[in-house]
């Protein structure tokens, strides 16, 4: 049985200073406190700078004794993160987890992992090899993936307009809404749905 009272407190605590910390957590699915969605901003001076990375968080029944299950939803090019499915190789999400840690500290650790990869303990062998053998190319690829997958604004506006119009919203309203939310397709959809 997940300790929901603790999870509630964790959410409040984490989101309190999200603008400073660069990490935040939201409910992923209605009221279900065992399925959350984390967000981390790419660390400055890393190839992930400027990106926003979405993390799927599932809390197992034994939480906080068992570690949260975290996985990147946003595609990312990093030695310790699978380029295929976003699986993460990080000790605190496995045997080094402790109830003394929190979802926030786990997300901050992921952010730190983006800054300092550990290619000797890889999740994605291909990326790790590239990191070790051809660092400049690694940086280029990681930056390219960040631009392509982690920056919402980088997807063409026309593409977003077309997608939302296909969902049945009037084009004028779609353009106006996209403008208000700064080009974020998901936020626009949310706003359009709630009227």
């Amino acid at each position: 049985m997940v300790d929901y009272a603790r999870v509630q407190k964790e959410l409040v605590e984490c989101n309190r200073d999200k603008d400073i910390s660069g990490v935040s957590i939201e409910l992923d699915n209605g009221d279900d406190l065992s399925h959350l969605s984390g967000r981390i901003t790419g660390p400055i001076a890393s190839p992930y700078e400027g990106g926003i990375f979405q993390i799927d968080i599932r809390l197992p029944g034994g939480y906080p004794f068992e570690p949260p299950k975290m996985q990147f939803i946003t595609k990312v090019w990093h030695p310790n993160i699978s380029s295929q499915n976003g699986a993460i190789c990080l000790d605190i999400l496995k045997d080094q987890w402790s109830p003394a840690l929190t979802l926030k500290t786990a997300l901050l650790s992921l952010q730190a992992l983006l800054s300092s990869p550990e290619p000797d303990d890889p999740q994605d062998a291909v990326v790790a090899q590239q990191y070790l053998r051809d660092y400049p190319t690694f940086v280029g690829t990681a930056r390219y993936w960040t631009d392509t997958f982690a920056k919402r604004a980088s997807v063409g506006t026309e593409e977003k307009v077309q997608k939302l119009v296909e969902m049945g919203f009037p084009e004028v309203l779609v353009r106006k809404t996209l403008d208000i939310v700064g080009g974020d397709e998901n936020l626009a959809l949310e706003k359009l749905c709630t009227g």
Partner: protein
Amino acid sequence: MGNNEKVAVAEEEKKSVNEVVEVAIETSYVDNDDWATYRDDEVMQQHNAIQAEEAHKLPFVGDKEPLSALAAEYQSGSPIIQEKIKLLGQSFSAIRRTRGDGNCFFRCFMFAYLEHILESQDKAEVDRIKANVEQCKKTLQNLGYAEFTFEDFFALFLEQLESVMQGNETSISHDELLTRSRDQSVSDYVVMFFRFVTSGEVRRRAEFFEPFILGLSNMTVEKFCKASVEPMGEESDHVHITALSDALGVAIRVMYLDRSSCDTGSVSVNHHDFVPSISDSPNGTTNAVAAKPVMTLLYRPGHYDILYSK
């Protein structure tokens, strides 16, 4: 470098990056059988399976067994061990085993201490340890731990402490203490409480513990607490025992059962008393407080059990 050249170089770089990306996308789909592609939850699953297998062999805290049960284990073993068990038999009558899941020291401490309070009904001792627990809470707050990470564990320990004192509605029997010690939802919480207390004490007196930790593991104090104290299942060493004994002000005796012997051929069982010291004096020196051990643990390399005196 002229501007045109720069543009040309940039173009070239862009091109090569795009090529690499394509190659990378293709190659990342091979090597599926590689160990590195196992996901976290798969690793955890295997870890849990191993734990479940252990659980079948022994509960967190076992039954009291006569010391002869220990002797039986070494029937065809080392003569030095056999000799030492005989010597132990002069002072001790029984052993209570704990599960070898890396939490055995804390589990021993939990049961032995609560059993001691249950049997002694020592109100003064309960009041004394409560004050220490309060101090430990302050230590964690000062170290910057979020309250919600530790408050439940503290509350659960204090609850057990209350309930072994008789004469209240919530009072429990010896049998119930054993049942609770075997119930994960109580037992693991108390173990975690001790881990918090231990970690807080080690960090609070980082300067004192640093040389021991460096000798053990070549880690910083901070890293040691994160990696070897706070996660469940991490085994305890001298540092853990010293810190817990000091923080809670509880003296612990450990008997060492190993194959070491003197050159003269005479065999004796080594022991060590962990006597709590108080380090609140301004110059940071520690003063040992004379205290009689309230529990005796049996150490065999990698594991702790509880011993009962005659």
